[in-house]
């Protein structure tokens, strides 16, 4: 496998674009940089940033999308997190929720553990794996023009959607969301389901 060319997109810029005018969008973020990225774009009640459970972001999005078929669900995660949950491509493909989009911010690194290269740095193609699992709407996004086209697809096109967005391997200032899972849970459910959903 050969090294692809250097990514040019900035991950915070990508996430700001994905979450612009987010309205009623439900957002799940994988642990680490993806959670900081969505928080940098605004710490909303309808964010569910993970602090653990590596590999679970896409399946959380699946359960949420099946439970809320009228709402758009966007999972934003990293390449390392997605690599730990590859089976979820097949599971999502079988359920085929029209309202689910999964975006992998692929910096080809394990950013929280010392910036070691992930498998994608050596050519592992996450969009290709998702396509082979049966997800029809897959793409790999590499520049600003492609990003602008992709945002509309990710936000509005029929799912399930799985897009890889190649981003620079920068270490950015942390934008830390609340850490208490029970608080995140109640905040999310109350915003989505009403005050009676509080535990």
């Amino acid at each position: 496998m050969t090294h692809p060319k250097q990514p040019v997109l900035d991950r915070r810029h990508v996430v700001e674009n994905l979450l612009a005018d987010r309205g009623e969008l439900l957002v799940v973020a994988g642990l680490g940089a993806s959670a900081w990225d969505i928080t940098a774009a605004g710490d909303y009640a309808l964010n569910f940033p993970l602090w653990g459970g590596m590999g679970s972001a896409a399946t959380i999005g699946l359960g949420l999308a099946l439970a809320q078929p009228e709402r758009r669900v966007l999972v934003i995660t990293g390449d390392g997190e997605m690599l730990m949950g590859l089976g979820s491509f097949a599971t999502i493909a079988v359920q085929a929720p029209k309202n689910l989009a999964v975006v992998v911010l692929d910096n080809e690194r394990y950013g929280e553990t010392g910036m070691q290269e992930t498998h994608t740095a050596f050519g592992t193609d996450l969009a290709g794996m998702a396509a082979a699992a049966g997800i029809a709407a897959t793409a790999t996004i590499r520049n600003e023009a492609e990003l602008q086209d992709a945002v509309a697809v990710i936000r509005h096109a029929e799912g399930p959607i799985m897009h890889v967005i190649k981003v620079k391997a920068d270490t950015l200032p942390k934008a830390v969301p609340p850490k208490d899972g029970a608080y995140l849970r109640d905040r999310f459910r109350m915003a989505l389901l009403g005050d009676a959903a509080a535990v």
Partner: protein
Amino acid sequence: MNNTTWPDDIFRALMDLDVIQVGYVPDAGHTKLIQTCIADNRVRAIPLTSEEEGIGLLAGAWLGGQRGALLMQGSGIGNIVNMLCMARACRLPLLMVATMRGQWGEMNPWQVPMGQTAEETLKLQDVTVYSVDRPEDVGEAVIAAGRIAFNGPAMAAVLISQRIIGSKDFK
């Protein structure tokens, strides 16, 4: 395994508990129940590639206002240990129903290590565990575990003994 009603008892219990999303990794012991879940459109039967996916799936389901359950083989308990952090840290409901291998007259020695440690493994992770040895107790145990799970919210598991399911014999 023939002429048994406990899989139907589990399904009735899941209906009584308003479970909608049923994630599963197949086990021979769950064959009938999985068939019932696939055939009945009151529930959504969701095949998983690994039990870990079930923890995420059911977290998402409940965040979205639906209840779910995870059907699995006892060996799958080993696969979910770290993922339980999510249900535990967020105090999410998690109802698991596992049919056990490696527990009673097991013919496959590779099944025995997890079969012998599954219950303790779950308890170490703060999961309420009901181990059931008699077929007539299975449905009631699922209701009881569901109440623990959804009223908590908390994690609860029903382990259906290999004595109920019977052990495979590779002759």
